[in-house]
């Protein structure tokens, strides 16, 4: 008998969640379709005027991606709580925070990454200039994991409450404001030909901090949720 190492446990956890997401891949398509449709509505509502759309394209895409991520967020731990998988995970001889970190990573890979992949398409729909798109992608690559991590903590805190979806949105959206400001700041700066590195670095710093703290907070919150 031997206990598996951390790497083996992490990969088992990651593989489990990716397999589960793949078995329900129609759920995975929802946020992507939602983002596509919402982005499509803006030119209809505002008129196909290039200069106006260009000016607000970055902001629209960031907000749309944020809202699309919210759609899938409350499912992060709910099924594991319902079927008892979370109890088993808590009792496993592995650091719970790390295992939850793997779950959050899997969640990011299955919800945020597809959104980032279609971002160039969204940008094209809103006439965002091509040179700005890499900055927008970089901002999203840093901002979306932040949202996943923040979201995971809130999902863990609201675990067990009924209809936590709306409550979650009300709690998460204000928390996202700083990430949104920095991401939008970088995109606007790039659009105006100004240096955009500073807001990106702020995002990266926030991500590093959250990456360390959020899984620990999740683990503590879920242990409390089970202890009742």
């Amino acid at each position, binding site marked *: 008998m031997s206990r598996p190492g951390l790497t083996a446990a992490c990969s088992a956890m990651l593989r489990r969640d990716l397999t*589960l997401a793949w078995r329900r891949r129609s759920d995975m398509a929802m946020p992507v379709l939602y983002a596509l449709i919402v982005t499509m509505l803006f030119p209809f509502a505002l008129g196909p005027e290039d200069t106006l759309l260009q000016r607000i394209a970055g902001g629209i895409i960031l907000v749309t991606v944020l809202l699309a991520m919210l759609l899938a967020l409350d499912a992060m731990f709910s099924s594991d709580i319902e079927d008892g998988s979370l109890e088993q995970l808590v*009792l496993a001889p592995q650091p719970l925070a790390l295992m939850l970190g793997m779950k959050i990573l899997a969640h990011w890979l299955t919800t945020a990454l597809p959104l980032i992949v279609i971002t160039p398409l969204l940008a094209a729909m809103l006439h965002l200039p091509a040179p700005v798109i890499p900055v927008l992608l970089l901002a999203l690559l840093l901002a979306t994991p932040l949202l996943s991590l923040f979201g995971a903590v809130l999902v863990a805190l609201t675990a067990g409450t009924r209809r936590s979806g709306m409550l979650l949105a009300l709690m998460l959206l204000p928390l996202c404001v700083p990430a949104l400001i920095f991401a939008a700041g970088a995109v606007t700066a790039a659009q105006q030909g100004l240096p955009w590195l500073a807001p990106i670095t702020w995002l990266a710093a926030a991500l590093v901090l959250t990456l360390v703290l959020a899984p620990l907070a999740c683990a503590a919150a879920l242990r409390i949720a089970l202890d009742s």
Partner: protein
Amino acid sequence: MTAAPIAVPLLEARALCFHRQDEPVFAPLDFQLHAGELVLIEGDNGSGKTTLLRMLAGLLHVGSGELRWRGAPLQRDNCAGDILFLGHQLGLKGDLSPRENLRVAAGLHGDRDGISIASALATIGLLGYEDEPVRRLSAGQKKRAALARLLLLPASLWLLDEPYANLDRTGIALVNQVLETHTAAGGAALVTSHGAVSFHGGEPRHIRMQA
């Protein structure tokens, strides 16, 4: 052919109690559980059997009293993975097959020497259902898939909440046999059950719970 009780009990409870909103859920409990022992927990509905098991597993905090694991105070670090808990929620993912579910569990806990996922599933009577999604299995088969986890994972103490529920006659006999093998190999188990349980190794010890 049970292992001789060693001096230090595997699990020991002293005046153990759990409070919900300052109300004690059950009367203070004192018991010792040695390696190779099987103990039945009896009590009416609502007498706190599940609460006791969840507390012993470490899911609920100890209300008052003391819990000792191999002579030292029971903490998450010194018993992690050595205690397996099987509750009403089986901890199986419906979209994964029994084989995949066991693979995840073994990925987190490791596995016993000399037993593979396939042999655990065969022993528990799920031959031919290894790759069927768990949500398509019957309640009894789901239970069996969860019991296969006990066979596969290395642990010395099993906490089983109603392991006989949903099982047919051969399933019940199978649980008894699995429990006997486990205790004969030096493991211990705490089992809650309403039904009469029969063991070849004589009547198991009882803990009576009172609200």
